[in-house]
């Protein structure tokens, strides 16, 4: 009995070492910074919850948090239905379906800062295709000056970038529905909406909950693309949480508050994902 116990440690120790270096130590470092004021490598003061209190009272951070919630909600509300719609419109078989898949997957393969650059150029009123075309029809698209336009640009970019992911997930979900379901529905006299409501949507349930969670987590930590596109402006109008956090930590070198906020940030994502997941589960159990 005792020997087996000892042998078991040989298998577990590498895992513990790996996890310590990749997860536990970095996390502890953050916790360390969040409860101490580190003035120099030799001098540090224990400050307790002071950083946490100051970060919670930070008005700019609160504003960034509200913007972040708005942004994530908007992307989910637009991208999920749109992704389902695109998946439904895609050809189910044939050479054209492969072509459609490749085209659809393109935005997902582009590096994120390139996505930002593409949309930055695309939206420019002087040389950008979109911006210039809009100004030709008499609409000045000033994403660098008008907060509303900046939001539209950031949202459009995110929709362009990530709707394909949802569409691809839904497409595979739809492909896995056996032909017989459609035949049976046809014989039962079901219309297109009935087929969507009673066959396709139920079969997409598990795929959709994965898609929603992925999209929520990704959109809630979005950094690179809006940073490249608008730089968080005009003013702070498109400064989201990640960008604010890096300003805090790297720009102003407020390491303590930044660490405290990192912990809160992480917990918020965990909490909202948990709520979303359970909400979707009860939703699918209820129907």
């Amino acid at each position: 009995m005792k020997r087996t116990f000892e042998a078991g440690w040989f298998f577990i120790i590498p895992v513990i070492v790996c996890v310590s270096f990749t997860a536990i130590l970095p996390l502890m470092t953050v916790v360390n910074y969040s409860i101490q004021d580190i003035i120099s490598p030799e001098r540090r003061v224990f400050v307790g919850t002071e950083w946490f209190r100051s970060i919670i009272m930070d008005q700019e951070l609160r504003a960034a948090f509200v913007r972040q919630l708005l942004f994530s909600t908007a992307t989910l509300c637009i991208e999920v239905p749109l992704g389902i719609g695109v998946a439904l419109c895609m050809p189910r078989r044939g050479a054209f379906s492969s072509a459609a898949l490749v085209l659809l997957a393109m935005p997902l393969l582009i590096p994120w800062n390139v996505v930002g650059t593409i949309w930055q150029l695309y939206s420019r009123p002087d040389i950008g295709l979109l911006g210039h075309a809009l100004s030709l029809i008499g609409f000045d698209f000033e994403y660098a000056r008008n907060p509303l336009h900046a939001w539209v640009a950031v949202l459009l970019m995110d929709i362009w970038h990530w709707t394909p992911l949802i569409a691809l997930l839904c497409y595979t979900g739809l492909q896995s529905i056996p032909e017989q379901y459609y035949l049976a529905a046809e014989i039962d006299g079901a219309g297109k909406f009935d087929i969507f409501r009673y066959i396709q949507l139920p079969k997409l349930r598990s795929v959709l909950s994965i898609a929603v969670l992925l999209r929520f987590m990704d959109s809630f930590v979005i950094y690179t693309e809006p940073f490249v596109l608008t730089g968080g402006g005009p003013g702070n109008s498109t400064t989201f949480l990640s960008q604010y956090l890096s300003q805090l930590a790297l720009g102003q070198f407020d390491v303590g508050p930044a660490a405290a906020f990192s912990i809160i940030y992480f917990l918020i994502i965990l909490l909202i994902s948990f709520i979303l997941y359970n909400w979707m589960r009860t939703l699918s159990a209820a129907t």
Partner: protein
Amino acid sequence: MAKIELKLAHTYSTAANPSPDDYALVQLDLTFEQGGAYALLGPSGCGKSTMLNIISGLLRPSQGRVLFDGRDVTLLKPSERNIAQVFQFPVVYDTMTVGQNLAFPLRTRRIEQRKIDARVSLIAEILGLSSDLNLIAANLPADMKQKISLGRGLVRDDVAAVLLDEPLTVIDPLLKWQLRQKLKEVHRELNVTLVYVTHDQVEAMSFADKVIVMSHGKILQVGTPEELFEDPHHTFVGTFVGSPGMNFVEVQVRGGELFKGDNPIGTAPDLVKRETSSALKLGVRPEHVAIAADQTGVEAKLKRIQSLGGYYLLTVDLYGQEVFVRTDRPDHLPEPGAPLRIDVLGPYTRFFKNDIKLPFGGHL
């Protein structure tokens, strides 16, 4: 309720002049009488599912017509034909309850709620689903789901026929038997035409009044299970029905005697006395080969004795060809390897020329 007539052929080829090999269904003329229980029997790829999909309207025949009670429905969609179809894998609407599933085909047809309720409870009772009407369909076992699929077909009182495409494939053997009984019960109570596609002869024979045997897109024989067994019209029917299938021995007629090669096997019956064809086969089922007394029949060699529970299957070497013999009495048999006299000429012996049965059977 309807009589269904098929006068058609079908090819999946889009060529202007498809070759005869391209036809999934060769020109056929077939009638399903109202209230009959039919089985379409044949190996995979013989065209039975094609025929089913043509009846239901999921597929349009490339030529010919489909008539329901004399009305041409060839161009009508499945939902306009009053056909119900049960597929190999059960199809249920996951998010609905059993009751909602059963009611669905009526709801899409905007039938009033009172009628729907009455009809659903009637069908649920026949299928034994009455106590499960409020369960969510998604989590039920396969046999229950298949009953629901069947119920969705039966719930419409105007249904012309219920088509079943190998509906018991995914069901446990024991439940298979129960479901088949349930199907027969439903058939009796509702007087609905049932067309059942299967490649399993036991399923076909135990379910149907009339079995349609198909091979390579052709109908080889339509008959009762007894007719198929006792009087197959084609060597394929002889082989496919029965287990093991019919024994076929290539024979020649010379001077009124039957020979296998140079070995005489008996007097030729009148039917084939003057037959000179080299493509002549004698067919006899293992059940109908008699173990002969001394001096009668022909001498063969016993190769194997297999016990199959209630009966025994002998493998006998008849002049170089294996012949199966079924017997219930293993006593008096010699050891394997020893000679055994058998009689292949009896009241159920049939003759086939180019695989097609010669007229008037081999009644001696």
